[in-house]
């Protein structure tokens, strides 16, 4: 019986094939108890904590946070008898080691790692499966992943045909030397892009239409959808050229939360994850796109009252209505009047976009992220409100997907929530304008010839001066200001 137990990701919800490691609650070397929560995993159905199957000491963690792992893949190795001396002779294979002491928690450790099944004859249930099985009418629907089949007598050995994705290290490291290697085949980090190779390009008709409209050649894209099909996001990403921003952002431990200073009274925080990406983007943008920032202070008293009236309406009862919603609407309407601000500098040409993927800068525990509302210009005010609420909540819970952060075309940064008046924002790479929305304050203001207490805010617009001249930038900012000064009149006049 082996001392080292490897825990494989179970199917957490009736027919799931994968899960994303959200948070590790333990680290290598930790002593853990039976049923102690060790990791939070998100599947298509739920985010759940997995309790430890064995008591012992964590020997290895096989996948970092943010990785999508196939069901059945080893995720953690636990030494179930850490008091029994060094591990040199121990192996994580299911082979019994007769000269080892029996684990103290023998009964709890009775289950060995199930040897993974050989992967041969990958068939697609619901598609052209070897057994001729077709799509189901009820239940969870056909599987879209490769089915695993047991070898038949006289068949080709399983391993010969099993694909072996590179880059996954199953060696269990003890101290500083690799002490053992598991014999579990088929490394499990999922690479959806290995769907189909060659042959016709897979894309749904609306995606093909979108690609045609945006002038994107589907043949040049790598699909991220099921079976390697090309999705709407793939096309939009290609069209916006914002590949850099689409890099998956690694989830990092909150290294900054526990500030610990050494003897030199300095703290060294490794630059990685969101911080690293933010730094790269900001430096690149600041030194490649010549920015100009303009400011405009406006009286938003009417707009605030309009918001109150909106909140009072029955059909808006359950909707979160914030000043940001009106600012977003103002920006979207102003873009319609000045499409040039919604563009990208692409070296020898300027790409002007009809669609607005409206980015909202959000401060989260992971750091600054800028998810965007796709094609926000086509949304009604109600849809926009729902989309913003959803975006903010997703960001706050740390569940924003890389796709939601890519392809932004124009961004709002709501620095007002931090209580400051305004700022000079730096453009997200690939975008030409970003609006800072300051705090709404009660201020003395000249209103109808008299000094009154009014609700006032300051807008700060940074734009890429290569594309946007002072005149265009000023008109754009002025229009946003006009809308926020009197939204009803602006709506009547412009739409």
């Amino acid at each position, binding site marked *: 019986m082996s001392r080292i137990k490897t*825990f*494989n*990701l*179970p*199917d*957490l*919800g*009736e027919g799931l094939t994968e899960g994303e490691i959200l948070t590790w609650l333990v680290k290598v070397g930790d002593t853990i108890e*039976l*049923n102690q929560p060790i990791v939070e995993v998100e599947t298509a*159905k*739920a*985010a*759940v*904590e*997995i*309790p430890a*199957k064995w008591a012992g000491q964590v020997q290895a963690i096989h996948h970092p946070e943010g990785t999508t792992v196939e069901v059945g893949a080893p995720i953690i190795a636990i030494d179930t008898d850490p008091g029994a001396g060094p591990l040199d002779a121990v192996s994580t294979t299911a082979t019994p080691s007769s000269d080892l002491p029996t684990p103290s928690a023998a*009964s*709890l450790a*009775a*289950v060995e790692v199930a040897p993974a099944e050989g992967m041969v004859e990958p068939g697609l249930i619901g598609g052209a499966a070897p057994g001729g099985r077709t799509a189901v009418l009820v239940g969870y629907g056909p599987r879209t992943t490769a089915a695993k089949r*047991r*070898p*038949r*007598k006289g*068949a080709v050995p399983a391993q010969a045909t099993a694909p072996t994705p590179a880059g996954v290290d199953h060696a269990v490291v003890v101290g500083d030397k690799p002490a053992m290697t598991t014999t579990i085949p088929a490394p499990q980090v999922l690479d959806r892009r290995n769907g189909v190779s060659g042959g016709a390009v897979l894309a749904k008709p609306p995606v093909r239409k979108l690609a045609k409209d945006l002038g994107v050649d589907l043949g040049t894209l790598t699909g991220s959808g099921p079976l390697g099909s090309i999705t709407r996001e793939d096309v939009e990403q290609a069209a916006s050229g914002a590949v850099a921003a689409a890099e998956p952002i690694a989830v990092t431990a909150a290294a900054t939360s526990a500030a610990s200073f050494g003897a030199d009274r300095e703290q060294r925080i490794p630059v990685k994850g969101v911080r690293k990406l933010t730094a790269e983007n900001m430096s690149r943008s600041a030194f490649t796109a010549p920015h100009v920032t303009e400011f405009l202070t406006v009286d938003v008293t009417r707009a605030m009252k309009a918001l109150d009236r909106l909140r009072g309406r029955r059909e808006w009862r359950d909707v979160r209505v914030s000043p940001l919603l009106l600012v977003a609407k103002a920006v979207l309407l102003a873009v319609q009047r000045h499409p040039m601000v919604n563009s990208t500098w692409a070296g020898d040409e300027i790409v002007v976009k009809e669609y607005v993927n409206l980015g909202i800068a959000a401060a989260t525990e992971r750091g600054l992220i800028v998810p965007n509302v796709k094609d926000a210009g086509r949304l009604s005010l109600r849809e926009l409100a729902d989309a913003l609420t959803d975006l903010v909540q997703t960001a706050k819970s740390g569940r924003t997907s890389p796709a939601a952060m890519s392809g932004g075309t124009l961004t709002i940064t709501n620095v007002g929530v931090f209580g400051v008046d305004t700022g000079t924002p730096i453009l997200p790479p690939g975008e030409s304008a970003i609006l800072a929305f300051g705090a709404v304050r009660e201020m003395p203001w000249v209103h109808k010839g008299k000094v009154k207490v009014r609700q006032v805010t300051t807008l700060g617009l940074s734009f890429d001066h290569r594309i946007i001249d002072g005149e265009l930038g000023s008109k754009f900012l002025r229009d946003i200001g006009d809308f926020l000064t009197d939204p009803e009149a602006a709506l009547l006049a412009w739409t």
Partner: protein
Amino acid sequence: MAKGDPGGTTRSRRAAPRSKKGAAGDPALVQLLTPEGERIDSATGPDGTEYRVDFTDEEYRGLYRDLVLVRKLDAEATALQRQGELGLWASLLGQEAAQVGSGRALRTQDMAFPTYREHGVLYCRGIDPIMPLGLFRGVDQGGWDPNEFKFNMYTIVIGAQTLHATGYAMGITIDGKTGTDDGEAAIAYFGDGATSQGDVNEAFVWASVFNAPLVFFCQNNQYAISEPLERQTRVPLYQRAAGFGFPGVRVDGNDVLATYAVTRTALDNARLGQGPSLIEAYTYRMGAHTTSDDPTRYRIASEVEAWQAKDPIARVKAFLEKQQIADAGFFAEVDEQARRESVHLRERVLEMPNPEPVTMFDHVYPNGSPLLDEQRAKFSRYMESFEGSAH
């Protein structure tokens, strides 16, 4: 009004008769033990029935032990699912009092028809708690004998068991086993979501017009998976009974004493030939619908916290402490027993043998059939065509 209470019920509840003391904010709720652990001598139901219990100290301690064990075993099953040892688990967390209270009110001869969440009732019926784990591990179909334990198989189809129970209860009448103090009765468990099913409403009609000795026991845990109660009903569920012609009562489902009292009375009425009744045990599912569900997606944390304060076990513990019926040694001993039994449960689950696939032919007909024998032979040959063992 607590969030989660159906908004549309305020008016009707105000009109309902006020029970003695009652639960805060809910005059129609029969309650004998408050969330703070205060005993109420008696409570009056909407039809004027007076409910009370008279337990010995030993019985009070026994109920506490049941509640703690049922919760602990349930938590172990949830952990086993997360560890890949069960395919699915429907946790009863938060509903222990509703199940133990009603389960302990059953007499030996009474027949129970559960859903798939009645692990607490199953425990009270004396069935080995590992039985449902075999079902959810996929190694058997639920291994207990329903006739031996008077506890039917778990029913996954929502509400279907209410019809089975109605038919069974009509059979009790036909067999002439009602009308005495020691008569028989049946109880059908279901949830708030099931009340929207046709099956349940049909069962109400049949049970009513045939005066079946049946207790409809609805655990209103506020959610039909993700659908809140206000999407099931605009009147308190217990009031639906009136439309079908039998009495209904709402009991604090987190109060094991009141649940026991109300269920015992309803069963006794049934066994005496007075027909069916509906009990709405007003409770809360503290966990997920099943392990495949993520309740944080459809309900807010403050609502869960509000119900945490009404925990069914904490109030019994507070009562036992205040009345000096139990001391710290007793509580520690119960916790230790729960820990031991959950570890024992885990060990046995991990050792459950996988059945040979060919055994699926064994229980189709009691005496076999030639056609099935042929299929069995064909299937055996197919299984033998694989490398390695047949299994």
